[in-house]
């Protein structure tokens, strides 16, 4: 059991536990906090896989922006209370069944797939440092890159439009 493996298992445990608790907890704010912990653990995974840039970006975008959005929305709607009605029992049972089914199917697919090669490439070449990533992004993937910026612009405009309060016309 090498150190890396231990770290991996620890991080996985944190990820799965926090994800599960996100869903399970009654208070939305608690869910949000657990989700932040989950994101941090995933960033840890990225770091483990030597994707430093992605780890940082992940923390900034997800924990820093998206979760802040979530928290603000929760507070805006004053959902601090734990007053949610549960779904009917049948539905909850169905959800559990589907969950297990999906799990089973996916895992069985992966188990039945072709044997994974045990030889891992290790050319030593740098393929994912921020320098290389920048080059790949702006050479081969330039058009999607630009489109992504347009997408974000559009999303921003859309959000502003959607959440504008309507003016009273009878004034």
């Amino acid at each position, binding site marked *: 059991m090498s150190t890396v*493996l231990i770290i*991996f298992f620890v991080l*996985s445990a944190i*990820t*799965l536990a926090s*994800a*599960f608790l*996100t*869903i399970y907890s009654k208070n*939305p704010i608690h*869910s949000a906090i657990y*989700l932040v912990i*989950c994101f941090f653990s*995933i960033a840890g995974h990225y770091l483990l*896989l*030597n*994707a430093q840039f*992605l780890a940082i*970006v*992940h923390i900034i*975008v*997800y924990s820093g922006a*998206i979760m802040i*959005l*979530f928290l603000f*929305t*929760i507070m805006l709607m004053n*959902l601090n209370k734990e007053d*949610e009605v549960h*779904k009917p029992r049948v*539905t*909850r049972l169905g*959800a*559990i069944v*589907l*969950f297990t089914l*999906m*799990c089973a199917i996916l*895992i069985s697919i*992966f188990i039945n797939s072709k044997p*994974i090669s045990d030889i*891992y*490439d*290790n050319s030593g*070449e740098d*393929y*994912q440092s921020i320098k290389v*990533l920048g080059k*790949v992004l702006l050479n081969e*993937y330039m058009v999607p890159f630009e489109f*992504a910026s347009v997408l*974000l612009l559009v*999303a*921003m405009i*859309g*959000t*502003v439009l*959607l*959440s504008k*309060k309507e003016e009273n016309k009878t004034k």
Partner: protein
Amino acid sequence: MQNVLEQIGIQNYIFLSTILFCIGIFGVLYRRNAIIVFMSIEIMLNAVNLLFVAFSTYHQDAQGQVFVFFSMAVAAAEVAVGLAILVSVFRNLGSIDIAKLKKLKG
């Protein structure tokens, strides 16, 4: 530098990603609060991102990470717009229980 996957093994990452994804699905089906549903969707997206990065390391190729990059951008945009819609719904309906959003009945 040794490939870290030699020590961990790619199938572990696959299982982790799968289970995380299924937890996300479970959350989508199980909860009635729209915010929690959203969060579950984020979990699903993250599971996929994790798998991409793992395979990028497996193939020693940057393309996986590029896709994660874009996936994050899209997720951010989606969350923004989705929450804006949610806020509108809350303003109109007074609650974000998805069982109350039944007006498109067939």
